[in-house]
């Protein structure tokens, strides 16, 4: 089956005062219908910028190149007005802070109905009814009553549910969720992740889950892509990457994440800090923090290479990685 989204050579650059910074560098990936792809990385890995670029939501000093094929339409080649047709209808995005995407002066049903009126050409009344139905689908109690509320009258979890409802109104092919649960409490986060699972199954929507939290990824995603310094370093199924990571960075992230069932005396964190995009290390961007780096990593940048089971990695290191504090 053809993938819903094929991204080819996506690069995102930002013009700063004196220099140009490349936030995303030649990103290639595909998104299959109905699957959940987790994009994992730390700050500055380019994970959010790549998808903001797809949505045409880059900051003013940003520019994008490459291709993003949604069916046979290249999203990156569209004009702003053309892109508006696809945004919300075929591809929707939700953010960490729902307040930034909700208009504080409009009632929920007005905001939700607006989307349907715009994209589906429904009349106001019909749109409001569908909006209330959708609010119910995402687990908002008393949806007819809540639909009259303003965004600030809701709790953080409820707002995020409203955002999801709004994103799913037109039954998009792709839902991009940028750190959707980071600001929420664990109990609410668990509810939201459950909601993502059921909704993507019900609507057949492909989900892109952008996050730094491997705990969130484990329960929800099918495949994952780990990014570092603007490039993907490892791709594969969630099980492959969690149980058999091949890139030292993936391994390091796993060892940095505290596991409730394992009380280790010390975690084995990755040393050092994520690099600044303005000053990426030569060769493999991860080499200064890598316990397995050797001469070649300093001089040459490893390309993404195909391995078995459709997985890919960008690393020169071969063979098993014994992880632990380097003496």
């Amino acid at each position, binding site marked *: 089956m053809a993938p819903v989204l094929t991204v080819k050579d996506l690069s995102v650059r930002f013009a700063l005062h004196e220099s140009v910074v490349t936030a995303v560098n030649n990103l290639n990936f595909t998104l299959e219908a109905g699957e959940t792809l987790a994009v994992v990385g730390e700050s500055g890995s380019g994970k959010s910028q790549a998808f903001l670029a797809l949505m045409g939501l880059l900051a003013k000093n940003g520019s994008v190149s490459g291709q993003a094929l949604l069916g046979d339409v290249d999203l990156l080649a569209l004009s702003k007005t053309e892109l508006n047709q696809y945004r919300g209808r075929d591809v929707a995005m939700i953010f960490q802070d729902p307040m930034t995407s909700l208009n504080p002066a409009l009632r929920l049903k007005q905001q939700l109905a607006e989307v349907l009126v715009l994209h589906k050409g429904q009349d106001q009344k019909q749109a409001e009814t569908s909006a209330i139905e959708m609010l119910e689908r995402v687990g908002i109690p008393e949806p007819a009553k809540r639909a009259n509320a303003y965004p600030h009258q809701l709790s953080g979890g409820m707002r995020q549910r409203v955002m999801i409802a709004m994103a799913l109104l037109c039954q998009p092919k792709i839902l991009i969720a940028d750190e959707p649960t980071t600001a929420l409490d664990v109990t609410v986060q668990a509810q939201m992740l459950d909601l993502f699972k059921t909704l993507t199954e019900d609507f057949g929507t492909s989900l892109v889950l952008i996050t730094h939290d491997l705990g969130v990824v484990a329960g929800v995603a099918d495949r994952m892509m780990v990014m570092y310094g603007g490039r993907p370093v490892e791709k594969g199924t969630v099980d492959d990457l969690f149980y058999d990571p091949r890139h030292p960075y993936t391994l390091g992230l796993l060892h940095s994440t505290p596991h409730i069932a394992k009380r280790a005396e010390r975690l084995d*964190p990755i*040393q*050092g*800090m994520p690099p600044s995009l303005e*000053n990426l290390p030569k060769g493999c961007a991860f080499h*200064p*923090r890598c316990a397995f780096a050797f001469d070649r990593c300093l001089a040459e940048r490893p390309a993404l290479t195909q391995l078995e089971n459709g997985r890919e990695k960008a690393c020169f290191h071969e063979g098993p990685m014994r992880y632990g*504090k380097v003496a």
Partner: protein
Amino acid sequence: MLADNRIKTVTSVAAAPADVPAKGRSLWRDAGRRFMANKAAMTSLIVLIGVVLFTIIGPFFAKWSIEKVDWSVVGNVLTAGAPSFETGHYFGTDEVGRDLYSRVIQGTQISLLVGLVGSAIAVVVGTIYGAVAGYFGGRLDSAMMRLVDIIYSIPYMFILILLLIVFGRSFIMLFVGIGLISWLGMSRVVRGQTLTLKNREFVEAAIATGSKPRDVIFRHIVPNLLGIVAIYATLLVPEMILLESFISFLGLGVQEPNTSLGALISEGAQTMQYGTYWQLAFPLVFFITILFTFFFVGDGLRDALDPKDR
């Protein structure tokens, strides 16, 4: 004491970037750089410095004092009193034959002085008053801010006129009058900022590390207010100049033979009908130049000190 052997047990050391400059970049220096890059603000600052230098150097080239009446012009100001290098009246003379060049210089000096003094009072009194009210909050805050409201609600022009009439027109009274009201707005701005700053974690951190209230205010809050204070003070200067001009325009400002730009403009406006346009033009050019440059410098400061995309 921090024994060395205990420190040895710590193994996780932050990786240092290779290029650590020994000296840090303070926010002030960053702001300075941004200000320099702002052409309108830099041009204005240079023009403003030029005006100030002119008021200092200018008097050395003056052939006439501010009060000396050139009898040769009296009665024939329109032709004999026009700006000319031969007569030494570079800017012409006023209606009674006094040298306008000297008078504009003095007027500019006084206007600038009024503006700067009014603004300085606002900076000192307004900052301390607002920071104290905002930091301690509660009843003290309510009492202090209500006092500001009360002073605000009194028609100050009326009070000022009364002051000038009762105590006579003098420089001191003018400064007292302007000083009385100039700090009100500043104290409100500063209080508002203090309220947000005091909820910032670094202020809580200062309290948690045992800082006294005085230290918290002067070491932690006030330095973070200085940006907005600088902006506001710069914009207050032209406001004070306008206020003084208005008072002088009403004829209640500085006393003859001293003068200010407001007084000169007032006189110039009255004699415009006789065709002695220069009596209005010269003070007005200086006046507008000063106002504009201060506004641009203030704007530049705001952009430099308060960048949204930091």
